[in-house]
């Protein structure tokens, strides 16, 4: 532990630096180097942040789902492993909320300029809003629940919340409403122009490495908080066992 901490800190700083560098390249590609979309104009450049972040926002709920299942499995068999799983579940839920919030916000800003409306109750928008509400309720349940069962209740909620993820993904394939058709894997007319690919993939890579960075940083913070609580509890027990002379 004594030797690992400085190494982990160096790796974290290196990862942070790489994330920022890739995001700077992505920003430059999206704003300055990619030609303006003939149909949408400059507002079409929102696409380079909206789509990669929307795609990544569907990955973090699965991490939360896996960590919640691990928590439910270990909570009676190995409480220390369960605590680690719970810390990871909390971190992934928060990152899911961050990415889903950005997806909704950038989508609304684009929709107002492109469609003339902020919001439409179409299948994709509604299912993403539901996803956001589910993970917000997960975080609120953890924050406001006063019982010792809040971690278990949150893990059970997470298992059900994950059901919405495939619905979000399939919504623009099952129901063709207001939201644009899938960019990838949406049939013979899907895909994007070659000139758009560098900006798209640099931003996808940038927000992916950034997402991993904030996920692990938040996880490390939660583990640090858990260990500090354990230490404080042990000190309290030790103090209560001291016999006054």
């Amino acid at each position, binding site marked *: 532990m004594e030797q690992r901490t400085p190494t982990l800190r160096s790796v974290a700083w290196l990862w942070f630096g790489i994330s920022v560098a890739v995001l700077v390249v992505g920003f430059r590609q999206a704003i300055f180097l990619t030609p303006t979309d003939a149909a949408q104009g400059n507002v079409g450049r929102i696409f380079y*942040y909206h789509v990669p*972040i929307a795609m990544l926002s569907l990955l973090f709920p699965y991490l939360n789902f896996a960590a919640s299942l691990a928590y439910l499995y270990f909570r009676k068999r190995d409480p220390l492993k369960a605590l680690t799983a719970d810390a990871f579940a909390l971190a992934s839920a928060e990152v899911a909320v961050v990415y889903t919030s950005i997806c909704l916000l950038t989508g609304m800003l684009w929709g107002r300029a492109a469609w003339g409306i902020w919001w439409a109750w179409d299948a994709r928008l509604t299912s993403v809003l539901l996803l956001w509400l589910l993970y917000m309720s997960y975080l609120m349940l953890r924050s406001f629940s006063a019982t010792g069962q809040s971690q278990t209740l949150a893990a059970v909620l997470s298992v059900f919340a994950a059901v919405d993820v495939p619905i979000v993904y399939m919504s623009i394939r099952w129901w063709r409403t207001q939201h644009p058709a899938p960019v990838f894997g949406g049939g013979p007319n899907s895909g994007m122009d070659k000139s758009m690919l560098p900006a798209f993939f640099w931003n996808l890579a940038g927000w992916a490495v950034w997402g991993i960075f904030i996920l692990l940083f938040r996880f490390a913070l939660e583990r640090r908080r858990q*260990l500090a609580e354990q230490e404080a509890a042990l000190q309290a027990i030790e103090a209560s066992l001291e016999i006054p002379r």
Partner: protein
Amino acid sequence: MTWQSLFDVSTMEHRHLLFAYAAVLLIQGGYVGWIAWNWSRVKGPRH
């Protein structure tokens, strides 16, 4: 597009592009800043 046209807020198209990029950077930066602030407040196990 140039820096000047990025900060041109005369049309809704440009305003929303700027707001979208600024919002993304502020939300992500704010979240990592909040984690870092809490990190500095919670003592490590060896302290």
